[in-house]
């Protein structure tokens, strides 16, 4: 018994289909509670007024936008080292989800930035690196679409993901050097544990963050299942054609 038994598509599908209903329910409950609680159950901020409430959407999606890339990085490494197809397909399945999360984070950030900073967009390090991350997602997805042979596509995109990660980190620091930004630092530093957000805002935010994490997991499992079935259907079709 080890984690690697789920490299078998059948075992993976069985487990993921058992887990998925629970995941979907918990994720929905968390997201809906977090957002509703955040939007209606918390007071307005002293200076930011009601615009502060976009944080319950902005922070969790931004968090998942980065974590989705990390997940793709790990999945790509597993594919390159152990060549489990499920892993490659999971990376493929996660990319569009990450892309959408990045887009939501960018758009909600712009909507918040307009009244608060007086601008929709500023070439701030965080904003810029998110835009670059968005382009990386686009390139990754485009490469998956462009290569016909699925194994070659998995290989090439995995290497792109690895190299892209290095350059994404490099860009992050380069951009910081290039322009000192407008974006505030994090209010919830994980390392020091000294958060500057009051409990009133923190608990709905935490709920929303957990909800989006689970939602991401559910979406990726669902999409990976779809990809596995698509691959299976393709294999069957190829066999039929060979017989004819």
């Amino acid at each position, binding site marked *: 018994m080890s984690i690697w038994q789920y490299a078998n598509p059948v075992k993976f599908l069985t487990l993921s289909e058992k887990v998925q209903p629970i995941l979907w329910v918990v994720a929905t409950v968390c997201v809906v509670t977090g957002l509703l609680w955040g939007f209606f159950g918390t007071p307005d901020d002293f200076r930011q007024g009601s615009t502060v409430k976009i944080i319950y959407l902005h922070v969790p999606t931004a968090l998942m936008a980065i974590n989705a890339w990390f997940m793709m990085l790990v999945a790509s490494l597993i594919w390159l080292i152990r060549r489990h197809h499920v892993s490659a397909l999971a990376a493929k399945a996660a990319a569009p989800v990450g892309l959408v999360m990045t887009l939501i984070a960018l758009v909600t950030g712009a909507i918040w930035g307009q009244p608060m900073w007086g601008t929709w967009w500023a070439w701030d390090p965080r904003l810029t690196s998110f835009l670059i991350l968005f382009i990386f997602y686009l390139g990754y997805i*485009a490469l998956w679409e*462009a*290569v016909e042979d699925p194994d070659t596509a998995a290989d090439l995109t995995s*290497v792109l993901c690895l190299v*892209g990660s290095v350059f994404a980190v490099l860009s992050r620091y*380069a951009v910081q*050097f290039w322009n000192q930004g407008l974006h505030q630092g994090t209010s919830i530093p994980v390392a020091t544990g000294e958060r500057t957000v009051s409990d009133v805002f923190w608990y709905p935010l935490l709920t929303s963050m957990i909800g989006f994490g689970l939602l991401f997991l559910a979406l990726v499992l669902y999409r990976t299942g779809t990809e596995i079935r698509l691959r299976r259907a393709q294999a069957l079709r190829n066999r039929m054609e060979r017989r004819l």
Partner: protein
Amino acid sequence: MIALLRRDLQLSFRAGGGFGLGLAFFLIVTTLVPFSVGPEAALLGVIAPGVLWLGALLACLLSLDRLLALDYEDGTLDLLLTAPLPLEAAVSIKALAHWLTTGLPLVLAAPVLGVLMSLPPTGYLWLVISLALGTPALSVIGTFGAALTVGIKRGGLLLSLLVLPLYVPTLIFGAEAARRGAAGLDTSTPLLMLAGITLGTIALMPFASAAVLRMGLR
């Protein structure tokens, strides 16, 4: 290795090799910029380092899809794959040939175009130094992009989408060094970062490119 380098250089210099195309593109981009932003010397002088860097980068990008695609079509790549020469070395040589035929002419032409862009007099030296330091990285990263898209039909646009985000750090530090030089500020920090990126990519990217080529040609 030297034979391969000579072959690549000869191919690009001879008719239809595309040598000079990158230069012409660089010239056109820099000529078009004053048309689009207006001919005021003060404004042009401010944006000159950035525009020249961007032009050089785009000119590099333009010639990338020829880098491996032609060799893929006539089967040279398959020969290189089975040759006793390690593929990593072959890829490095290809990147070197690309730099000699695209990057180096761009570096040499940049000061001339700097005159067109009314670059401040202090900027020329730093522009040339930053381009000379940065363009090798562009060639090496570009080779990786070309290797990724080598088997794909009409991969040119995809190549730009993949390569441009990888160019971001190089562009930032390169243009920053040129800008600081033109403004008469200290340039050592961005130049050191740029040199670091170039050396790092030269050392590591050939392995990624070769790995990707092996996967793509399997």
